[in-house]
């Protein structure tokens, strides 16, 4: 590794992003060997069993939904938005860490992103796929919904209403899905070429060969590749910030107490990064153990991610404080009622305190370096965060809706078994897609790992060259 200015053992000396003793060959062999092998870890089958079982629940619940209509869900009036939008926002938020790691940390030249960006990007794609299920199926008859979701010349000559945040959301999320997919694929091309060149079975060679598009790794290829990759990162960085901003507009533009607040866009973006890093850690810790990736995903990665989780968690808590302050300072009786109802006398006040436990109290453990380095503790904390971020959306959506302006329309909301089946079903879809990905594609960017080796930075500098 690059020589540090600090002596070894000094707490300021950086922990390497790849453990010493590796060569191009050892990196290539380890990272392709995980996929190009007939041997699959037992734990993989266990996760796939769980994932596929939950996925069956998803297909069942969606089939029943299409047969019966969305009346099978617990949504009512006034709680017209419930699990469908809670889960949507939860999944979209989780997706954000992938783009943050791959784009924003690239622009900030954070070399520790390299070992985690590929599977974080895959996580983004799969989380967005899970998220999309909810609004699509909330339309009840998705095949009839196309004309008011997408602007296309239809026989009724109707066009969507672009003054509505809901149509902004369609644009933001579909752009996000498309750009994340292409960013991910571009990142994969050189590694697919490595797979093509290392695969022994002719069928695999052909499949990876087609996907690699004939990549040769020529200096011209790489030059254009790096240009395009940097531009993609530069375009994805504002995109990722815009997506959760637009999602927050779904609420902030409405006049409902508890939704109508200007803090929403930054607060939602911070929440998204918080949830996303928690999910990256949730996946990275078991995958690292399952595939013995300790040399590639070092303590430095895990600690850095834990620190990002802690910091963004504090930003989210600041958002909670602002919300409460705005409610009080507005002097508006509906705002103040919403606040008191949400925090202490409403029927859902317990969810607020659960949220505080999960998102505020438990993550404070990550201040301690000793606890941050204890993976069992980190894993437990991030599981709390995963639940906490779901609860946050429940609190925002359900407690704001169930006490309408008119007391005569007040109602409780109770999710049905179908709501839960769909939620856990998407977790199954996510696990299944994630583990299929880990089995067939490189989950760590191989070519970028090679660039982390000291010999990858040529010592030769062209001197006296007139360029």
């Amino acid at each position, binding site marked *: 590794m690059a020589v540090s200015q600090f002596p070894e053992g000094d707490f300021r000396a950086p922990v390497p992003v790849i453990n010493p003793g590796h060569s191009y060959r050892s990196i290539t062999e380890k990272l392709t060997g995980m996929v190009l092998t007939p041997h699959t870890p037992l734990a993989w089958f266990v996760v796939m069993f769980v994932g596929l079982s939950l996925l069956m629940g998803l297909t069942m619940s969606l089939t029943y939904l299409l047969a019966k209509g969305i009346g099978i869900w617990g949504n009512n009036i006034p709680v017209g938005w419930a699990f469908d939008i809670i889960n949507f926002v939860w999944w979209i938020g989780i997706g954000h860490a992938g783009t943050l790691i791959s784009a924003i940390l690239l622009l900030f030249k954070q070399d520790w992103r390299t070992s985690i960006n590929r599977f974080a990007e895959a996580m983004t794609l799969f989380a967005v796929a899970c998220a999309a299920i909810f609004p699509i199926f909330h339309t009840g008859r998705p095949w009839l919904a196309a004309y008011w979701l997408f602007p296309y010349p239809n026989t009724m000559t109707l066009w969507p209403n672009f003054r509505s945040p809901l149509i902004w959301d369609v644009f933001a999320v579909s752009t996000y899905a498309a750009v994340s997919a292409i*960013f991910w694929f571009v990142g994969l091309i050189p590694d697919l070429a490595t797979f093509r060149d290392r695969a022994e079975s002719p069928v695999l060679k052909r499949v990876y060969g087609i996907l690699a598009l004939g990549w040769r*790794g020529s200096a011209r290829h790489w030059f254009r590749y790096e240009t395009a990759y940097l531009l993609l990162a530069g375009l994805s960085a504002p*995109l990722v910030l815009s997506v959760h901003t637009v999602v927050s507009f779904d609420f902030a533009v409405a006049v409902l107490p508890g939704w109508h607040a200007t803090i929403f866009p930054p607060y939602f973006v911070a929440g998204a990064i918080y949830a996303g890093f928690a999910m990256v850690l949730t996946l990275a810790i078991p995958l690292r153990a399952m595939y013995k990736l300790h040399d590639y995903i070092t303590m430095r990665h895990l600690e850095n991610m834990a620190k990002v989780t802690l910091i963004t968690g504090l930003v989210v808590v600041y958002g909670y404080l602002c919300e409460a302050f705005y409610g009080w300072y507005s002097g508006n009786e509906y705002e103040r009622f919403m606040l008191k109802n949400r925090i202490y006398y409403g029927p859902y006040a317990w969810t607020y305190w659960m949220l505080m436990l999960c998102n505020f109290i438990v993550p404070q453990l990550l201040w301690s370096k000793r606890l941050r380095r204890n993976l069992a503790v980190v894993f437990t904390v991030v599981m709390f965060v995963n639940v906490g971020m779901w609860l946050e959306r429940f609190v925002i959506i359900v407690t704001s809706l169930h006490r309408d302006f008119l007391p005569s329309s007040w109602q409780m909301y109770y999710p049905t078994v179908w709501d839960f089946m769909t939620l856990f079903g998407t977790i199954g879809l996510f696990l299944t897609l994630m583990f299929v990905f880990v089995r067939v594609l490189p989950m760590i960017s191989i070519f970028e790992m090679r*660039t982390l080796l000291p*010999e990858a930075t040529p*010592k030769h500098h062209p001197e006296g*060259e007139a360029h």
Partner: protein
Amino acid sequence: MSHVSSSPGLYGLMAEFDSADDLLVAAERVRRAGFTKTDAYSPFPVHGLAEAIGFREHIIPKLVLGAAIAGMLGGFGLEYWTQVIAYPMNIGGRPFNAWVNFIPPAFETTILFGAFTAALSMIALNGLPQPYHPVWNNPRFSRASQDKFFLAIEASDPKFDLDQTRAFLGGLNAREVVALDE
């Protein structure tokens, strides 16, 4: 593959190197010797290699900028046309041309067009997808995506001479120099 081919079916000569440093030095020397139809191959992007083979190109950023502007205008134009001309709807008395509300979708189309242009122009300018290329006639070239470095000089280069160029490449700390069929 290291047989001597007659010129008509010959693609060129290819040298193999063990390190990025050797490849970079060799690429510099080849360029200074006046060769122009050359290419260097490495398993990861090597800083300075494109300059070393004399390759410069600035088209992708311009294409992306153009596409992003087109995306922005296209997105905004679609919104304006649908909301003001094709299907004006009075919703709460708000103006038809509610340009502030048109910003988020127009922003997204800007990014969408820019990002797809970045990726697709990279692929297209690289000549991909490309099912066949003579470099693969070197059976060791499969290492170019793993741990070895290669430098090729094409036979169509005006300065190319099979024996002299082979000797020249051999003197550049190359592990092996082979002739490639077309």
